[in-house]
């Protein structure tokens, strides 16, 4: 259950104005240096409980910003001012000596039963306030408050929306390979506030969020484990429903950008074709036809005009792009090996994919015309990439060795900062 969070913009501290260029990371450039940021430990005003929450919030902000690879945290042991002082009269020359380029301070207070967190972000070189917010929320919500502060800092410095106040749905796996259990689970992007959605009594695969993140489309094999159908789980009601069973085995569901239909694959008679299904009428429309090929893993471009998918019609799995309205599709992948799981970035600029070559799996990206291909990670078994809502991070399934555990990893496509995402057990196929 989401609790309400209230925002107020803090008035800008009147500070001396300097004519230098404002602090900004240009993350469209290929190379950049992480921005050194000093995050002073937030102040709980002497209240022991608030002091503890303040420490926790500071920790989460630091973990978010450091984890994305675009920031370098200035060692708190070197700090020369408290958060309370930073909030009212930051001594910029002293912070410059520590090479801090950005400076953050924050205060916690009680407001009735609620938690009130004020924070300010400063540009040390121009000696100016970049942003400041006052956030009010139920105290139990402190993690979200921290993520939102990190989002505000990220957005102000990079110009992109942050992705820290977001959630992941994935397949929680347990048990040996034979007889393994698969459950839908949801958690914060950093693995906290983990909850199971499905019971584990049915085999569930390949979950995908709706554009508004209120629904999940996935494959469910049913109680008899023999009836693979597409299902939609509604997070607001907690209810799941089947999209109906017909001849042919349906798979690879993905929502359209406006959420009114899904695109999918259906296997019948040894051929797998793409379809779209209107979610109100459940009417199916066939998009590709072939006498022998597998067309699978379709995904729309964010403007809905194109579809990227996998086809083995040329002999091996390759990435094809076609107009949503029709057409044969143009192959865009040409490196050695085979490709799977193409996913269009929410920014529209890149397509992430799985590639397999000579026994190694890769997660990579290329432009929608196939140019600029680069690999981001490789290993024994990597698959199932998903984009952060701002199109700057990719999360995916990673099994490091043949006997290793299956888990989730995330990588920043600019900072190349790779990290493991914590889950209570094994996990695969995240959707972000």
């Amino acid at each position, binding site marked *: 259950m989401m609790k309400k969070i209230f925002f107020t913009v803090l008035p800008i501290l009147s500070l001396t104005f300097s004519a230098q260029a404002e602090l900004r990371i240009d993350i469209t450039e290929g190379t950049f240096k992480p921005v050194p940021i000093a995050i002073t430990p937030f102040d709980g005003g002497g209240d022991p409980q608030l002091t503890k929450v303040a420490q926790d919030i500071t920790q989460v902000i630091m973990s978010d910003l450091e984890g994305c690879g675009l920031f370098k945290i200035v060692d708190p042991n070197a700090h020369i001012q408290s958060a309370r002082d930073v909030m009212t009269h930051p001594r910029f020359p002293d912070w410059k000596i520590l090479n801090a380029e950005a400076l953050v301070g924050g205060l916690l207070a009680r407001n009735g039963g609620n938690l009130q967190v004020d924070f300010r972000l400063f540009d040390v070189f121009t000696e100016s306030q970049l942003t400041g917010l006052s956030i009010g929320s139920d105290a139990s919500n402190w993690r979200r408050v921290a993520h939102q502060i990190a989002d505000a800092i990220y957005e102000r410095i990079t110009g992109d929306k942050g992705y820290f106040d977001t959630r992941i749905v994935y397949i929680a796996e347990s048990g*040996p*390979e*034979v007889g*393994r259990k*698969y459950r839908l689970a949801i958690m914060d992007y950093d693995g906290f506030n983990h909850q199971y959605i499905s019971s584990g009594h049915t*085999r569930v*695969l*390949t979950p995908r969020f709706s554009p508004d993140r209120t629904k999940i489309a996935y*494959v469910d*094999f049913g109680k008899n*484990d*023999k*009836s*693979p159908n597409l299902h939609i789980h509604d997070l607001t009601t907690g209810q799941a429903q089947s999209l109906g069973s017909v001849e042919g*085995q349906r*798979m*690879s569901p993905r929502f359209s950008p406006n959420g009114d239909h899904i695109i999918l*694959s259906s*296997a019948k*008679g*040894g*051929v*797998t074709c793409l379809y779209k299904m209107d979610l109100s009428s459940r009417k199916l429309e066939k998009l590709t036809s072939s006498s022998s090929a*597998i067309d*699978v*893993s379709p995904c729309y471009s964010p403007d809905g005009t194109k579809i990227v998918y*996998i086809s083995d019609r040329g002999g091996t*799995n390759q990435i094809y792009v076609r107009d949503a309205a029709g057409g044969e599709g143009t192959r865009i992948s040409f490196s050695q090996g085979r490709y*799977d*799981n193409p996913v269009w970035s929410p920014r529209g600029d890149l397509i992430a994919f*799985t590639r*397999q070559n000579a*026994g190694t799996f890769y997660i990579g990206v290329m432009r929608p015309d196939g140019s600029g291909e680069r690999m981001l990670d490789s290993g024994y*078994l990597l*698959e*199932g990439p998903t984009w952060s809502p701002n199109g700057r991070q990719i999360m995916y399934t990673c099994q490091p060795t*043949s*006997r290793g555990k299956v888990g989730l990893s995330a990588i920043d496509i600019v900072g190349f900062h790779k990290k493991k995402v914590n889950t209570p057990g094994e996990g*695969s*196929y995240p959707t972000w």
Partner: protein
Amino acid sequence: MRLKITSLLAAGALLSACGSSTEECVEASGQGGLAAAEMAAAEAACVPGSVADFVENVGDRVFFDFDKSAIRADGMETLRRQAEWLNKYPNYVVTINGHCDKRGTVEYNLALGARRAEHAKKELAAFGVDSNRIKVVSYGKNKPIVEQDGSEWAYQQNRVAITVLD
């Protein structure tokens, strides 16, 4: 028609040399010191027309090469025996389960497993089995038959279409 087999796999493992004679089987299992239930199962394996008869004597699985769905010569021979048996016992309906080893993606392997199962179905139909008696379902790489520790044998066991008597 259908017999209850409680420990089919155990019986299968112990009686790999099981022939078609009931007498031989019981004798063999007796030497192995099997429990009563296992002996019953072992005996059942040799009852013509039983599930165990199909699994043990005909062969319920067809194996595939890596990333392929073409039926190999050994698979074709198995399917010919399956069709002969199914034509002899027309009361059975079957589901062919398509499986893949884990060296691929969940999504593509669901489609590949479906294609493997469909190819097996096509051959059974070509050998005269009414295709209305045959369902197919693909588990892709998500329902392996044996643990995959990196050995080629384990991967091979999971690149399979298994004909299951319903």
